[in-house]
């Protein structure tokens, strides 16, 4: 009853004053304009698709550099720039500097924000010191437009979008327990959402909503523990009881292991304004050694749908119960409307680290499809669509008494943190994929005095198809791939699709490429100063279309380059898989912007 009242009050407040809802509505409108790129996912549906077609499959071969900008930071540059009303906002990895450039004269920096951070953050981050982007909230009556930055040391900062002045700063993640921020914050209505990284270190995952104007914490929803902490609504999984309902955040853990159970979310969000639900995924359970945490470990590895006003969960689908591989379930969520089996449905699709692309009815949470991103996925035979359960192959499990060879995908997943594109006209996803497998070898130290288990070594290497990546056009209606293009290295950062029949993406070895989205044919490529782990964006300025992309190799695939690691099993096994990369590219960091030559 109490809750109902609160919900009513929120609804009335929205309709009455329009102030809180305005930001959201305005952002929806702004994201529709192709002069803008107002959030890392382009729009709330995370289409990563632009209706611009000045650059198209016929003329893309003429694309040339329009301007460039060096960020002065050498680590891996994930994410991409935002473009809002003539300004470009650029984020960098630690030290997390933010730059604003005026598109009328990008040769001069309008403002820059250099946060003072706890240097301990650097040591804590597992896989380079990446940052996946900033978030934008439009101005409201008497309140300036804002840029939100998640700092590696766990602070969320609100900046004046015009001046770069700090408006407020809140601690969202506690660096003292190993929690950092690498995620791009996400603005919904009058709230900004952010999660932490650090499941690796047992950080108990949560998402926090802060008020965009004063930074006041509005709600926090955990991934593990009591239902109250996880914020399960009375309706939770009402329509999908097979996924499990109440009490499981405690019952599926031994003792109080849920307190250090991981399930952090550091990936991407999506939002459906009509259903008024946010979507995101929680990550892997901790500790990574599965023998230490018997049970399903709910609700790690879960696709969530929550009410943004109070954070209450409507449904949750755990994709990988009792994860053994570090298939952190944080990847991006794409919202589409398609007709499957004769039924037009609101869908959410999610290419998971575990090698499966899931499509759910996003109103009800029901599983519609679960397809392998590649036929070499072997930890799971298939996903039972009725129960939602993966049917596993124990040969490819990781246990302390078992040495597992050729597990596909590796801990890096067949899809990692990249944001991919969906072309609503062609009804195709363009997926940037990894193709890396691994051996898992537990080790026990020769000593001492009853130490029972100490760790495991992952060795990662190119998958059976001999390359490390693909770009594929996926049809969620049929589960088929329309085309597939191999890449020597993983396509880590994601793809961009345009109405000009093009798919853009960057490669780890430093190429930006444009494929014909109808058939996958390579139409243009350009070698960037350093490898790419971010995603391209496109925008129109003064009637001209531009494509922008970060270069700056690093992140998990580049840890070997960034930290100068030689041991092939170091860096969570990433060095082995990507040793070859050092022959193709070196560290760097910046933005390159492309356009067609002016007609003369």
């Amino acid at each position, binding site marked *: 009853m109490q809750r109902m009242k609160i919900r009513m009050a929120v609804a009335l407040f929205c309709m009455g004053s329009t102030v809180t809802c305005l930001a959201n509505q305005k952002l929806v409108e702004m994201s529709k304009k192709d002069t803008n790129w107002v959030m890392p996912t382009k729009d709330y549906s995370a289409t990563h698709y632009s209706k611009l077609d000045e650059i198209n499959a016929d003329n893309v071969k003429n694309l040339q550099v329009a301007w460039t900008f060096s960020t002065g930071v050498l680590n891996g540059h994930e994410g991409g720039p935002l473009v809002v009303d003539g300004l470009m906002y650029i984020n960098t990895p630690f030290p997390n500097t933010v730059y604003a450039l005026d598109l009328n004269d990008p040769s001069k920096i309008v403002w820059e924000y250099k946060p003072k951070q706890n240097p301990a953050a650097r*040591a*804590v981050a*597992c896989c380079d010191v990446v940052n996946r982007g900033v978030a934008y909230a439009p101005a409201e009556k008497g309140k300036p437009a804002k840029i939100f930055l998640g700092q590696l040391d766990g602070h969320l900062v609100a900046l004046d979008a015009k001046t770069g002045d700090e408006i407020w700063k809140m601690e969202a993640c506690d660096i*003292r*327990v*190993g929690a950092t921020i690498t995620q791009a914050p996400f603005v919904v209505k009058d709230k900004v959402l952010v999660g932490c990284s650090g499941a*690796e*270190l*047992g950080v108990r995952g949560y998402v926090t909503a802060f008020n965009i104007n004063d930074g006041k914490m509005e709600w926090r929803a955990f991934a593990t523990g009591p239902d109250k902490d996880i914020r399960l609504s009375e309706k939770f999984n009402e329509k999908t009881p097979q996924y499990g309902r109440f009490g499981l955040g405690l019952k599926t853990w031994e*003792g*109080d*292991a849920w*307190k*250090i159970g991981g399930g952090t979310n550091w990936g991407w969000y999506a939002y459906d304004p009509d259903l008024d639900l946010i979507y995101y995924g929680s990550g892997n359970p901790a500790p*990574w050694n599965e023998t230490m945490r018997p049970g399903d470990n709910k609700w790690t590895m879960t696709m969530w749908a929550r009410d943004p006003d109070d954070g209450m969960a409507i449904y949750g689908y755990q994709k990988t119960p009792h994860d053994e591989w570090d298939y952190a379930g944080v990847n991006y969520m794409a919202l589409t409307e398609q007709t499957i089996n004769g039924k037009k449905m609101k869908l959410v699709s999610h290419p998971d680290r575990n090698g499966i692309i899931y499509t759910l009815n996003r109103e009800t949470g029901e599983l519609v499809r679960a397809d392998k991103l590649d036929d070499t996925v072997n930890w799971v035979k298939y996903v039972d669509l009725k129960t939602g359960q993966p049917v596993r192959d124990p040969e490819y499990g990781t246990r302390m008494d078992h040495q597992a060879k050729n597990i596909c995908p590796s801990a890096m997943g067949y899809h990692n943190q990249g944001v991919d594109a969906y072309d609503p006209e062609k009804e195709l996803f363009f997926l940037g994929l990894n193709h890396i497998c691994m051996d898992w070898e537990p*080790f*026990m*130290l*020769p*000593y*001492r*005095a*009853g*130490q*029972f*288990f*100490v*760790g*495991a*070594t*992952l060795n990662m290497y190119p998958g059976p198809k001999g390359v490390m990546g693909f770009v594929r056009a996926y049809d969620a209606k049929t589960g088929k791939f329309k085309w597939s293009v191999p890449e020597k290295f993983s396509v880590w950062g994601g793809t961009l699709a345009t109405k000009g029949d093009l798919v853009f993406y960057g490669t780890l070895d430093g190429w930006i490429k444009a494929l014909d989205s109808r058939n996958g044919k390579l139409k243009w490529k350009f070698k960037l100063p350093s490898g790419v782990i971010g995603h391209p964006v496109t925008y129109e300025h003064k009637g001209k279309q531009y494509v922008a992309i970060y270069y700056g190799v690093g992140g998990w695939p580049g840890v070997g380059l960034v930290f100068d690691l030689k*041991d092939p*099993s*170091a*860096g*969570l*096994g990433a060095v082995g898989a990507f040793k070859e990369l050092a022959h193709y590219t070196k560290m760097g960091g910046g933005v390159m912007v492309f356009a067609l030559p002016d007609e003369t």
Partner: protein
Amino acid sequence: MKRIRYGWLLLLATLTGCQSNPVAEAVALQGSPLKVCAGENELPYSNRAGEGFENAIAKELGQALGRQVVFVWWQDARFVIKNQLNTGKCDVVIGVDADNPLVDTTRPYYRSGYAFVTRKGVVVKDWDDPLLQRADHIAFVPHSPSEIMLRKIGRYSDMFFYMNELVDFKSRRNKYVRWQPKRLVEDVLSGKAQVAVLWAPEAARYVRDANDKLEMRLIPDHQTDRRGNPVPHRYSISLGVRKGDQVLMRQLEKALAKRHGQIEAILEAEGIPLLPLNEATASR
């Protein structure tokens, strides 16, 4: 019978070599050095500077065998047995559990136990001590019996972050991360931790060197986990050789017997509380 004869032959050879020609002896020693697998930065066990008590024990054994000791250093403990011992790069590991299944082990040459390290005057006798419920910080090494016990008394989860802090939040996957006993003991000395739970031989010298500010107390060996299974807190330590390396095993057994007194002196000087090797035990 055969064993004894072989031993005599060896001894004779050494003696004759020694008397007849010192240079030849040195050459002979160099020709068959005792290759000891040792961590280059694993104090108090071993380090490159030879400051560890296992460095000293290895030298005693080498002298007893009349063989030059060559330390084959490792930086990463993970695959010492697989990649170094089993491939013949080194031949003996100085300290392993007496029943370590990865290697063949000699008869144990010392026995000790897990201990509570506290500031002088702070007495923690057993795992049910109320101080362990009150303590802000309990320093311990994961994957050791202390972890199982902390889980049992309900302090593991809230010590988890401190446990990670003790290694500056290094992840253990794909990496050998060592909890430095020195740092754990120093945290007790500084007052950050109220108690450290350590394998006594790892803590001994740091307690010894703390100007009488610390005390170390062996934990009674009657512990069980949450399900009632025994959790041994006392262990007998042996030398480990490659599986099937009976020749070296016999030589080492003999050397251990011969240098028993000297080895015990090394362990005692280290401050290690030694237990009788034939101690009746709940577990092993």
